[in-house]
């Protein structure tokens, strides 16, 4: 693997909120076009880690690189889907998805001073949004004109993913996007995420490098993490920090990092295939009685292993 194929990289990242130590010496490298799921106990800092990639939080120490460049604030190249507040309430479904194209491609002076050019462009944006929504299973003309409050939670998250994807971001970040959904809805959205794998593959085959998206998904469902991702990363405060000379937990760190089998959409996922990996993830990240060296379950990247400790 060459350096060029690394999309997201975190090197010796520490994060504290005041006296509170949240993340400790996180080292991660995500491949371009890869699907990573982040799992860990509640409150361990999964969202914090994600927001440092997004750019709304700064690491206390260490560096976060996306596409080789230091993350500095928000960017149109990194899309986000939140669990709540995922859509703009004052825009219809179609307008929500076209919104990014409008903001990205035009400016307020352009829209005010060149109304005819803007109207022509607007039509193109709406067509693009309609195509993308059809692709995620929301092509029904009536749905397109709905406001977010008229949609079910599952539809809202579909729209939110389309809204982020219309930007063709290089990184798509999802923070427990299906956390509030019932099981059936969750499964249909998981199939939609798996569809992104296929889209990536097609883009790669057709040489459309800019259309390849790297996905980072935060979830508390281990099965979901294994099913959707080609790499599962476990973050946890349950590691043997006492044996490493700390008298209080210096924060959560990467305790698990392994590839996961890739499932094709519509391929019935075999639950039994997960069981072994599932047990391993639980031992590594979720079980507070098992405190092992964090490198124990990290096999994917040699580079993920920390080289210097306590850098902050």
């Amino acid at each position: 693997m060459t350096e060029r194929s690394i999309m997201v990289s975190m090197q010796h990242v520490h994060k504290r909120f005041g006296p509170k130590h949240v993340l400790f010496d996180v080292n991660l490298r995500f491949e371009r076009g890869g699907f990573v799921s982040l799992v860990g106990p509640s409150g361990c800092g999964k969202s914090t880690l994600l927001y440092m990639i997004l750019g709304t939080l700064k690491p206390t120490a260490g560096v976060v690189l996306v596409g080789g460049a230091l993350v500095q604030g928000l960017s149109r190249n990194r899309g986000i889907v939140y669990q709540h507040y995922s859509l703009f309430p004052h825009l219809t479904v179609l307008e929500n998805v076209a919104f990014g194209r409008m903001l990205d491609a035009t400016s307020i002076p352009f829209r005010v001073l060149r109304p005819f050019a803007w109207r022509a462009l607007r039509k193109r944006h709406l067509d693009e949004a309609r195509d993308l929504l059809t692709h995620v299973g929301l092509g029904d003309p009536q749905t397109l004109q709905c406001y977010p409050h008229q949609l079910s939670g599952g539809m809202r998250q579909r729209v939110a993913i389309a809204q982020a994807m219309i930007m063709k971001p290089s990184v798509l970040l999802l923070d427990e996007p299906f956390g509030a959904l019932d099981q059936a809805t969750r499964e249909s959205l998981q199939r939609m995420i798996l569809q992104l794998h296929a889209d990536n593959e097609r883009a790669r085959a057709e040489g459309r490098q800019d259309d390849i998206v790297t996905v980072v998904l935060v979830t508390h469902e281990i099965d979901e993490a294994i099913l959707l991702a080609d790499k599962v990363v476990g973050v946890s405060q349950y590691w043997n920090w006492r044996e490493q000379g700390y008298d209080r937990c210096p924060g959560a760190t990467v305790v698990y990092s392994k590839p996961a089998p890739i499932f094709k959409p519509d391929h019935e996922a075999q639950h039994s295939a997960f069981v072994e990996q599932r047990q391993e993830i639980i031992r590594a990240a979720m079980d507070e009685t098992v405190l092992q060296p964090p490198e124990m379950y990290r096999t994917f990247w040699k580079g993920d292993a920390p080289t210097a400790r306590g850098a902050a």
Partner: protein
Amino acid sequence: MIRAPISDRQRIALGVAAVAAILVAYTVVAHVRHLDNAADRIVPTWTQLWAGIVRITTLDPDDHVRYIVADSSATGLRFLLGFGISVIASFVIGVAMGCFRRVRALLLPALSALARIPPTAVTAVIMAMVGTGMTFFQFAIAFGVFPILAESICLAVDDVPDELIQKSYTLGASQGEVIGNVIVPQILPKVLDAIRLQIGPALVYLISAELLAADMGFGYRIRRFGRLAQMDIVFPYLAALAVFGLVVTAAFAWIRVKRCPWYQPTKEGA
């Protein structure tokens, strides 16, 4: 039972009953008073009220104006300018305070303090400082309306979730677009509601300023005929004020429903 629903017919009938009861009680009181003194104008009979209405709508032989027309245009213009300027100013300042922490730190404490002073108590001060021209009425309205409205618009901006603002930036928005395309459209229904709720107070401040210093307008006319105990003139003026207040309030409620079909007052966010 508390909050048990009632039928539309029942609801309307009860509302009409209350109004009818007031009218009947008024008629009785007026009748009884006129048994003692047929010339009583403190509780005028319906006939006297009608005569009053005719008087204010016909050309007055001494003053050469139709009272209601002259007063409506004087008070209306003052209200329009005073309230309009207050609304525009508080919108700009309120949004600026909601978006920029420095503006907020600079202005919010001062505005909160100003908002605690009863505006009608300040009317005399304003009169001493700016005289009794149009500026006087504008200040009288603005002093009461501006601090409250600016503060509530600022709070409405606070209610826009951080997530949506951050998401706008990931969609390529500039700072101006975050304000113009994300924040302002989302606070619009709350702003319209806040404006609507300030119409009543704004009328209070304007009328009390007119009671103090004006030679035309609702407040002036009410004071002049009130002193003469001619309620056959005063009551139609009060009714006109009520109708004006109701119509403008309803208009703002209507605009909100038309302009912001997405707004769910009870459900926050999406």
